[in-house]
């Protein structure tokens, strides 16, 4: 199969030309591509091109045991892997009717929020880098590393933890762990003013980000935008609060909302969310010592574990938006069908194509990064 055509072709007269954003382009997140037609510096049409990261997860999962797939799912979204594990575990638990012990639930919440902070720190850097400011990226990724250190201590893995298993979590917290968590939280909180000074009050950055990729609430609902991108258009909705899972209904937190719906509003929502995550984590750290009990519900021999037939749709709020798993069991030891609904499947394809059309090439990269799209979720 020949990839492209090299025969000479007479072009019809046109004022437009094509530009390729990605897959090998710093203006694109991950291995993904956006082909745009441009006139001058205005994009007249855009087409997303995915599949570079396609591994056929859904097919792979049908060929592996329920428990084996736990190792597979975090790979679906690399920057924010914990929600993947948790969401998949929740699905199995619901199918198998397993009650997760409370302590395990709190530990899961802790991981989820740590992962959210890490992902947001990563996103700020990326967003700033698309506008040519690299310092927030350098700072953010270095600070994110501290959270990865926490994960490493907890699970042994910096990025992929495979710590949540059906029924609970793999191990209990190491001694003194919560102290280290709160120290890291203190540190990150102390860094927030620096980020504000560098990025969020930077006049040039505000100028660059305002009015870019504007999405109003109707459009956002029409295109199934979720997560921070939806909240940046003024809709007050968060899966954690409005379709609660784990112990989020026992935790006090606000859902930050912005009205403008542009790249700047999205950045602001993430910044406020980062603070809310810190607040949640403080509550978790305060609560965890008082929650005793096991960390894992007993499950049958996982190598010969037949889950009852049925289907379930679980969803969680990842840092990108609404993440959902549709899991079908036919009573066997392997999933019959798993469908992963990543939030970026919407953001990186239809929303991106629509926002980029009519935008200027200066803003294409910024739009993608401000949507915080994660290509592996699209390609799976």
């Amino acid at each position: 199969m020949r990839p492209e055509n090299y025969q000479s072709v007479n072009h019809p007269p046109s004022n437009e030309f094509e530009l390729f954003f990605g897959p090998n382009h710093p203006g694109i997140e991950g291995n993904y591509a956006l082909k745009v037609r441009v006139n001058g510096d205005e994009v007249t049409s855009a087409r997303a091109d995915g599949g570079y990261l396609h591994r056929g997860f859904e097919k792979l999962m049908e060929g592996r045991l329920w428990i084996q797939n736990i190792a597979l799912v975090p790979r679906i979204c690399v920057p924010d892997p914990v929600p993947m594990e948790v969401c998949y575990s929740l699905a199995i638990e619901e199918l198998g009717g397993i009650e997760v012990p409370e302590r395990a639930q709190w530990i899961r919440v802790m991981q989820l929020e740590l992962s959210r902070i890490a992902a947001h720190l990563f996103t700020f850097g990326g967003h700033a880098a698309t506008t040519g400011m690299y310092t927030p990226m350098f700072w953010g990724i270095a600070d994110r590393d501290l959270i990865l250190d926490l994960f490493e201590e907890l699970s042994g893995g910096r990025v992929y933890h495979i710590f949540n298993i059906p029924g609970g979590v793999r191990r209990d917290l190491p001694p003194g762990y919560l102290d280290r968590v709160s120290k890291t939280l203190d540190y990150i909180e102390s860094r927030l003013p620096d980020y504000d000074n560098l990025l969020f009050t930077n006049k040039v950055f505000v100028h660059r980000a305002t009015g870019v990729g504007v999405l109003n609430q109707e459009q956002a609902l029409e295109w199934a935008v979720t997560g921070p991108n939806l909240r940046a258009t003024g809709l007050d909705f968060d899966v954690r609060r409005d379709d609660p899972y784990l112990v989020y209904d026992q935790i006090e937190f606000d859902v930050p909302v912005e009205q403008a719906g542009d790249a700047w509003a999205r950045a602001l929502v993430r910044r406020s969310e980062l603070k809310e995550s810190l607040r949640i984590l403080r509550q978790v750290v305060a609560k965890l010592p008082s929650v005793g009990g096991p960390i894992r519900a007993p499950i049958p021999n996982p190598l010969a574990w037949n889950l009852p037939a049925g289907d379930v749709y679980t969803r969680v709020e990842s840092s990108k938006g609404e993440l959902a798993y549709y899991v079908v069991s036919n009573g066997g030891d392997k999933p019959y069908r798993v469908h992963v609904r990543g939030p970026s499947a919407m953001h990186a394809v239809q929303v991106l194509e629509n926002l980029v059309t009519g935008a200027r090439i200066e803003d294409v990269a910024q739009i993608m990064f401000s949507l915080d799209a994660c290509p592996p979720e699209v390609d799976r």
Partner: protein
Amino acid sequence: MSTLKNIPVVSHEKPSGGTGNLLANVFDELMAFCRSRSLFMLHYCTGCGAIELPPAMTSRFDMERLGIQPMVTPRQADILLVTGYVSTKTLKRIILTYEQMNSPKYVIGICSCTVNGGMYWQSYATAKKLNDYLPVDMYIAGCMPRPEAVIHGLRELMENIKKGESDNWRDYYRRYDHYLGNQQRLFGENWQTPTDIIGEARHYDLMGPETLGPHTALLEQHQTPLKPFEMTLGLADLPVRKDEPR
């Protein structure tokens, strides 16, 4: 070519052969040293291992102190980091990108998936063995390797470059037929990249015993030749177009 073990492995000439004049050797050493101390890596996140590169580049591990910095386009870059699984679609782009890079160029396979498919071994979409398609200089195993491991691997590559040992890029020219054969097997017979590898091998005197072979013959049969437009006055060699505009 029935017994593959008998294919001679060409041991290429070492720059420090001991022969020739001293000055040339010193010059070569200097080149090798500068090459090892200045590595531009291509900004191409081919897979999930790319998530450990930002930490390796940024404030905590700071690869710039080793002279390693990211570059945007293949023309500018020296190292192609293949970070993790390569889906077939990506593999085509990686080969295109690799061929567009200027030699000396180095391929580093990061993550287990590049070695043998990793945990996606049964996936229909990912290629399993990167060194079938590209000459890999260095594998960094792990899922995914920590930044320390990445940096360690890069330092080792730097050592190899300094010693003049890491020149698998020559192998791509010398055994192009082999690599092309594997590529054709995966992508189909009429697979063609815009870069003329055989022409380059001829131009830079990098031909080897296996540069040409059955697969390059197949390529010549199927390809659309992409000869560069040479600057020409065109008075003699080009025919007058009949439909030359008035």
